[in-house]
């Protein structure tokens, strides 16, 4: 009983059933707690990860589905030493309050910027609509995504 895949660029084998949610594999045997449980029903976005670069809700996705594929979590987006432009921008603009929603939002925004490097504010809002933030940090988050886009653009 083990699911093998690539996690944040490294090969891993999670000792877990195929039917177990990917969230359980990540937070359990793989020991990465940056991916959050929020609702277990794909309604809040706190658990969002990327599977082969596409957004996926790890709370409902079976671990077996990612066998042989590549999974990115917030820990794989960047580090304090080598932050993703989004993480730099979120820190610069202090885009967050409690921070519980941020892992999923950062990953979703990374997909937006990859697919649309110069999004409009409405693009950002639409992209983040599946994500809930209860603290009311939305406008800062939107500005931070736009700032990250600007960082990523040639001057």
């Amino acid at each position: 009983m083990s699911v093998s895949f690539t996690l944040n660029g490294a090969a891993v084998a999670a000792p877990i059933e195929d039917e177990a949610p990917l969230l359980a594999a990540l937070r359990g045997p793989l020991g990465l707690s940056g991916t959050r449980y929020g609702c277990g029903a794909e309604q809040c976005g706190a658990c969002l990860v990327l599977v082969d670069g596409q957004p996926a809700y790890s709370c409902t996705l079976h671990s077996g589905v990612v066998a042989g594929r590549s999974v990115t979590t917030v820990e794989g987006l960047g580090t304090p030493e080598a932050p993703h432009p989004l993480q730099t921008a979120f820190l610069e603009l202090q885009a967050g309050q409690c921070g519980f929603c941020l892992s999923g939002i950062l990953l979703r925004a990374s997909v937006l910027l990859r697919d649309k490097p110069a999004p409009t504010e409405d693009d950002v809002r639409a992209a983040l609509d599946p994500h809930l933030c209860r603290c009311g940090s939305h406008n800062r988050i939107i500005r931070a995504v736009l700032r990250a886009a600007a960082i990523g653009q040639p001057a």
Partner: protein
Amino acid sequence: MNLAFRNAVQGGDDKPKLPGSLHVNRRLDQWLSIQPGGTVTITPGKVELGQGIITALAQIAAEELDVALPRLVVRPASTPGSPDEAVTSGSLSVQESGMAIRHACAEARAIFVGVAAQKTGVPREDIAVQDGDFVAPDGRVLGSYWSMADAALLAVEATPGDRAKPASARRIAGTSAPRLDLPAKIFGQPRFVHDMRLPGMMHARMVRPAARGATLAALRDGPLPGGATIFRDGSVLAALATQEHHAEAAAARLAARASWDAADTLPEEHAIEAWMDSAPREDSIVLERSAETPAPARRIARRFFRPFITHGSIGTSCAVATWTGDTVEIWCHSQGIYNLRADLTKALRMPADNIILHHVEGAGCYGHNGADDVALDAALIARAHPGTPIRVLWSRAEELAWGPASPAMIVDVAAEAEADGTLLRWSQQVLSNGHSGRPGRGALPTLLAASMMADGFPVPPAINPPLAGGGGAQRNAVPPYRVPALKVDMARITAMPLRTSALRGLGALVNVWAIESVMDELAAQAAEDPLAHRLRHLDDARSRDVLSRAARMADWPNRQKRDGIGMGLAVSRYKGSGAWCAAVAEIEAGERIRCKRLWLAADVGEVVNPDGSLNQIEGGAIQATSLCLLEAVRHDARNVTSDSWETYPILRFTDVPRVQAELIARPEAPPLGAGECSLGPVIAAIANAIADALGVRVTRWPFTPENIARAMDDA
């Protein structure tokens, strides 16, 4: 909800007055310690809820000690060592904890400088402190906090006297220092209690009854996944397993196998208002001022109704507990660990000394959610598994349906005015359950499982703190406007079918909505601009200042009447004693109401961290927009049915208004807390904007097409 609450209830003492929580936690070493390695540890009793308080407290400490901010370490609160600052609530943390730390650090600085002076002969007033070094006028370094670190120096009681820097000398407090806790949350590093992993830890999931007050009648046998086992204490039922998903799957199976003795205990949702009007109640007078007034030319009587609403934390409640011998150690995100400990002693029937609590951050709570309840859940299960750490995580359904709710409220306003709208008489009657069911305040524990465990306790009805402690239902029920005759009454419903407690702003949300709606309507009847109408009824200069500023930001005088668009404004001083805030809202009335823009002006007195305060004020405004446009706890006669984000929707990114917020600088004024001041004014401004767009007063919450249609029918 805090020390202010406690003082209002218990009265003061004879000790020399010290600032904030220092008065009741008087030793300096309860607040700070110097580490020889070059850091300062501060140990506030207030806790980080995502509001940025630990950063603000670190700034205050760094300022008074004259050390660089990165040298500050903030240790999360724990028992028994941390000062007891009651609850982190009521927008009082800077006042209570910040002022204690300011005073304690200023005194600590004086003590250390005094020792340096004594040792070197350099007069103390000539010694400068530069990032912790004590420097003589000739540039010689005489020592430092670190070289002189000696715990005995701070093992003394604080003394009265103002040693803190004048506002003009502050360099760190008053700046927008970045949050200390945010990097970990942006890089996904473990920081939340949810992320704790102790050796041998097991995961548990609760199984909730089929109805409120139901008791567990039987549990059918059957296999459970992953070697999961059952915990049962009376009607407290849980599944536990070494892997989290097994506990979750096992709990689902137990739920299907459990049968409950259940009965209808809740009023039907459509009959809630009638139930409130007839429920047992306790009446009290909040404020009464008699005056002879002439016969009024105008009379307005309105009833405002708000259903139950809930906190809706994005992360669900979580705690970890370990039982060792006769002692239990608990890690949780409670807002008040000493208050929680007091209720745990009752529920667990054990002495406080045997309960050790550690605060670990959780998701934003916005008041009293399930954070305390889950700590008892974990403690009960851990008691049955000595030596094994037990982690309990609530499900989304539990978070939305089983945590305390903010009570349904009815506010009846009757106002009388002269022909030009000048107020003559105002009466306001507030009716609801109590707004505080926080632990640690009564003879009975208020924790969820306490009423469900074997040999458990009846659920005590929630209370309303006295107005001097901020009030509950009556918070902001006294209008801020000049009015000769005034009567404000409160009725607390003493039957409590749904457990109620504090949610950000408490009664202020509905009271400010009611007051500001009636003021607006009076202005409209008298054909007076609502801004001018308010300004001429406000004696308080700071109220007028925030209102004028918000109006200017929104270019209020030049607003154009546009089809389907409305603008409204409102003002309030939170609790009548806290921060001032005014809001202007622009809404679009299409198939549903959308709030497009908000302009906010606030006066929070001294601002320790302007960016943090603005973040709180804007966050409160957006949360208020969600609350009033969308939110209502749904229920039937047995249970809360709004137990998912589909059935309890909150505002999403595409509907979030654009917000412009400004602070009026008052560096010399006492700090007042920013966390809750914007909610009431924003809700009221949105309601007034709806009236501006549609010509109808919405008096039922949420401001949905259904409730607006109802208002049109009633008009």
